[in-house]
């Protein structure tokens, strides 16, 4: 099947990361956590099929460090968004490595988010869960937000990343 289409990217300097599927972008490493997790007893440190990712702590499950220090843009910024859950249980990922003049725009979006506030728990079942990870040089931020609480600055940040990067197919 064809890859899902996305809205036209905005912010030309914010390079979509990992969207070519070649696994060569730096943020591929940042965004390389195991979509389906790791079977019990397997090596959760990386995908054996991806030598670039092997041994990278960020390639273990998303519970690990949110970003690889090397996986950032020219200005040391990387933003990764993952949407898991839903009735299909498929995970999609989007990420950007802003650089140049666009970095300030992305930094404003990031700084508007209340990183220290714990979001309310989800209600019901089959809702999406959004994991948002930001790496600014050696500073990391991570938050997991139920879709019904992805509002205001969180929604603005996620929407911007999704507009800049077509993302991975669900899977």
């Amino acid at each position, binding site marked *: 099947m064809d890859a899902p289409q996305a809205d036209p990217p905005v912010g030309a300097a914010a390079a979509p990361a990992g969207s070519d599927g070649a696994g060569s972008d730096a943020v591929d490493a940042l965004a390389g956590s195991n979509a389906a*997790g790791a079977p019990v007893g397997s090596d959760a440190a990386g995908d054996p099929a991806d030598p670039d990712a092997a041994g990278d702590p960020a390639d273990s499950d998303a519970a690990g460090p949110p970003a690889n220090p090397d996986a950032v843009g020219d200005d040391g910024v990387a933003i990764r968004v993952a949407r898991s859950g839903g*009735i299909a249980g498929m995970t999609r990922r989007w990420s950007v490595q802003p650089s140049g003049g666009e970095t300030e725009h992305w930094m404003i979006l990031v700084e508007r988010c209340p990183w220290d506030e714990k979001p309310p728990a989800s209600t019901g079942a089959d809702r999406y869960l959004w994991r948002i990870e930001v790496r600014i040089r050696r500073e990391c931020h991570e938050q997991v937000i139920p879709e019904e609480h992805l509002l205001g600055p969180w929604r603005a940040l996620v929407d911007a990343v999704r507009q800049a990067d077509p993302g991975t197919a669900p899977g």
Partner: protein
Amino acid sequence: MTIHEGRGGPQTSDRRARIRQGIVPSYLLAKLAESERYAQAAEAARQTLIAPAPARHRAQLQLSIDENGTLVATVEAAPNRTISDAHGTENLPGTVVRTEDEPTVADLAVNQAFDGLGATFQMLLDAFQRNSIDGKGLPLDATVHYGSGYDNAFWNGERMVFGDGDGQVFQGFTGSTTVIGHELGHGVIQHTAGLEYQGQPGALNESLADVFGALTEQHLLDQTADQATWLIGAGIFTPAVHGKALRSMLHPGTAYDDPELGKDPQPADMGGYVKTTDDNGGVHLNSGIPNRAFALFAVELGGYAWETAGSVWYRALTGGLPASATFAQFAKATIAEADTVGTSTGDAARAAWASVGVIKASGDGRSAG
């Protein structure tokens, strides 16, 4: 003429009170409705029985003729459905577009949701004598056309919500009876064991919702366990996707294998149990393990899965299961219920759980995962 109070629960005074629509008992209304001697009263009774219910509980009158030629009127619980349209927004509930007493509308998704809710309600009533998701006739509310290209259907604790899909990977989520039954199943679970939506109890929650979804479709199509597809979400993918459905209960991990989506990652036994922090601990992945246990159990017993197999699972769910139940705890509960049916049924339950590695082949429960 014979009057029966039909399904919808045991013949208790409480139940009779639930299905009564007014001060005149429903059985008397039903009898009056058939009267030739009191024509005006009969018409009034008929109008009362079919009138929109001001209360949230409804009853339906079914007439049939038995083998002796006797007219039999059965009054049983009936659904009270309301479908709303979010018109592509994420605002709930949206605008009401069809209620219980209204005919079909031009919008296919609305009718599919309405019919799917009805099919689930009828399965719960026929199989488990359960009157709606709370057992007390709770109205069934759903919203269609949620969001823009929204690739999901969910239960928000009060209503079912269906997206239209992106049109490339997913198409409308109301097109699958198993999906609708799955979402309503979450409502039943919420009103019974209230299984936590995380880790093993979360995966049990997902699995039981799949069981309700599969049983709804099989009941609707009058399929026996060996005739059923045991697929969840067949028809949800667009034709471009290489896949049959979202999940296979009988053969987890085989529902799809697509160049873009990858291969169905569901494990079929405890050897493949997935540890992840995504998706509340992989609740939609590890559900494959208890899913296969149920499908194996039902196929081994044969016949209609909603009868013995479904009843055993339902009684385990509603018989004091803790909200934090693990696979092993649920297996123990289902085996205990199966043993009350008979030795062979108990043995079939033990064999099913052993086959997926949740208990040892000897039948002793063991911690899983």
